[in-house]
């Protein structure tokens, strides 16, 4: 049998894994902070949480939205901390790519070199042996190692569980939270009991990981910090003193990376947004962009109370239009098109047959609701106005002035979002003027909002007043492709 030693690839991947997994944990905490409430049902009805990790209580006597519920966690537990969801997402998705690549290299080499024998049990006798090991640990003693192997029986079973079950479980439950995956494969989300159930399971997986790391460290200390670190650094036990010293140097280096990532994210968020976003963007475009919604939830599944993010325009002009059922509202469609047009709400209704879709809405914060949206397919609008060849994006300008209307949001100015023309042509991209069979409510974007079912909610601009077909977006706002991208450093494409 292969000698179960500590080859260089195993040692390197171990420490790289430590870096990525700690980055994942901290950035995951940042994502939790933005909506620190956990539900079992996808409706996310307020008050039905099984857990909340916040001290905030929302008012009973005035309108609040989910931005008000966002919590500020310390940088010690979250990356970067202090309500920086955009940065947390960039680090989480960047780290998960690094973690998966590290894992792939590890798994390939594990099986190619025969080192898998150290983890995969091939005799039922390992279970009674593991039970005896457990009793030995409860006696505050150390059990014997398996013959010719670096682990005892209970350690071997635990590593097998973490490597072959827990790690894939985290990837699969994380994937189940992607709007694009949910849209294209609704059965996959149901497999986990729903989107919020997948979020819960992802949290439980995180807690098990944290528990494993704690026990792992206790085990290393109990069996011999110097000896085991010598094996994991040098591959052999020669100088335990050096191994101990070097183990702390490596840990300090990992802490330094965390510190640098935190400081950079808090002080130079745009740099982080550009650098990490560029890495993640490729994976998103390749894997998630082509996924088109096939959702068709039943009317019984519609959320009685569809949650909302963002507050309506607080201007006299908007209020007057609202009082008159938006009879005076006009939608201007222009930019790089052959036929610039202006539409009333009635024009949009008469333009072509109404499309209706019952879908799961994914907020970037993590909550979900199920709603029925009806309106004009965006691809029909595209065909109607005929974009010029140089048009590559569509910019949706809204009546919301964020500084005036939404004090909870960081930043100010007219809210806008940009989507790729290819996304605008996807069948699920809708200009919605109805919700649940009624005219679109004000808080959900009346008179017109965007629906893009393979993206998270903030891309779906509400209270739209103008649509521009453009060749680039670098000159709009801060040039990042949307108000949230400009001000809170989210990614432009958000299929996850």
């Amino acid at each position, binding site marked *: 049998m292969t000698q179960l030693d500590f080859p260089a690839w195993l040692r390197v991947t171990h420490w790289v894994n430590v870096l990525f997994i700690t980055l994942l944990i901290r950035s995951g905490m940042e994502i939790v902070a933005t909506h620190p409430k956990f539900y079992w049902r996808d409706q996310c009805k307020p008050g039905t949480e099984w857990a909340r990790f916040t001290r905030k209580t929302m008012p*009973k006597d005035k309108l609040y939205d989910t931005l008000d519920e966002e919590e500020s966690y310390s940088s010690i537990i979250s990356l970067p901390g202090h309500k920086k969801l955009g940065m947390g997402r960039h680090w989480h998705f960047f780290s998960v790519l690094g973690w998966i690549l590290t894992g792939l290299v590890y798994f390939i080499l594990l099986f190619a070199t025969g080192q898998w024998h150290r983890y995969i049990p091939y005799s039922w006798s390992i279970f009674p042996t593991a039970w005896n090991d457990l009793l030995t640990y409860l*006696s505050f003693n150390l059990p014997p190692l398996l013959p010719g192997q670096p682990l005892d029986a209970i350690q071997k079973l635990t590593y097998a569980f973490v490597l072959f079950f827990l790690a894939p479980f985290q990837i699969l439950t994380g994937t189940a939270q992607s709007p694009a995956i949910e849209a294209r494969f609704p059965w996959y989300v149901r497999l986990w009991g729903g989107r919020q159930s997948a979020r819960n399971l992802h949290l439980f997986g995180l807690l098990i990981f944290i528990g494993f790391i704690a026990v792992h460290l206790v085990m290393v200390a109990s069996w011999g910090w110097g000896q085991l670190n010598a094996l994991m650094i040098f591959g052999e036990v020669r100088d335990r003193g050096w191994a101990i010293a070097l183990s702390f140097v490596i840990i300090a280096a990992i802490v330094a990376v965390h510190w640098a990532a935190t400081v950079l994210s808090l002080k130079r968020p745009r740099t982080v947004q550009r650098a990490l976003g560029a890495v993640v963007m490729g994976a998103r475009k390749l894997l998630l962009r082509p996924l088109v919604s096939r959702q068709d939830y039943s009317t019984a599944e519609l959320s009685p109370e569809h949650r909302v993010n963002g507050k309506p325009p607080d201007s006299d002009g908007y209020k007057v239009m609202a009082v008159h059922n938006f009879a005076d509202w006009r939608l201007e469609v222009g930019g790089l098109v052959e036929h610039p047009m202006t539409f009333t709400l009635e024009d949009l209704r008469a333009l072509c047959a109404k499309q209706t879709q019952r879908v799961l809405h994914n907020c970037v914060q993590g909550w979900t609701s199920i709603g029925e949206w009806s309106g004009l397919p965006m691809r029909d609008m595209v065909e109607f106005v005929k974009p010029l060849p140089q048009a590559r994006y569509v910019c949706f300008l809204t009546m919301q002035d964020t500084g005036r209307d939404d004090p909870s949001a960081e930043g100010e100015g007219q809210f806008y979002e940009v989507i790729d023309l290819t996304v605008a042509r996807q069948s699920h991209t809708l200009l919605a003027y109805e919700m649940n069979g009624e005219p679109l409510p004000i808080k959900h974007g009346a008179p017109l909002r965007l629906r893009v079912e393979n993206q998270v909610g903030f891309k779906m601009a509400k209270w739209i007043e103008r649509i521009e077909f453009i060749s680039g977006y670098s000159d709009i706002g801060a040039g990042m492709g949307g108000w949230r991208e400009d001000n809170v450093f989210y990614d432009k494409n958000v299929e996850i």
Partner: protein
Amino acid sequence: MTAVLRWTGLGKLVSCYRYIYFNGPRTTLALGMVLVLGVGAIHLYLLVTDQALARGVASPAYLDVYFTLLFASALLAALSMATGRRPGWALGSLASAATIMMYVVSRVWGLPDLPLLVRWWDYPLGTFVLALAAMFLGLHFSVMTGLNVAYPDRRDWHD
């Protein structure tokens, strides 16, 4: 000191329990009952089998009384908790605290007529009952601080 705690973020970390609230009254109750019944069941087992002592060593009468009391308290605590009476939790904590205290005292200083217990830590069932008792105390503490809520109490979250 306050400045250091604030500057390092440690102050916030220490007070992090104030950010944690669970809403599982029945789960909390069930878990509490399982833990306290586990403590009681182990004491009943020790009473019946004399396994707490070395083979051939007669169990002093007071130890049998202690095991019996512990078992009865745990059972009463579980029944009281199930019927929604708060003293049940207090009784459970009392039984758990007594378990931990008696075990530690017996291993550190010994018990009357039982000096053989001193430094006898390598006893898996003892470690296990210690863990159960500690977990019950932790759970009861979490209920008292509001981190958890136990049936029949409920959360009143409107938001």
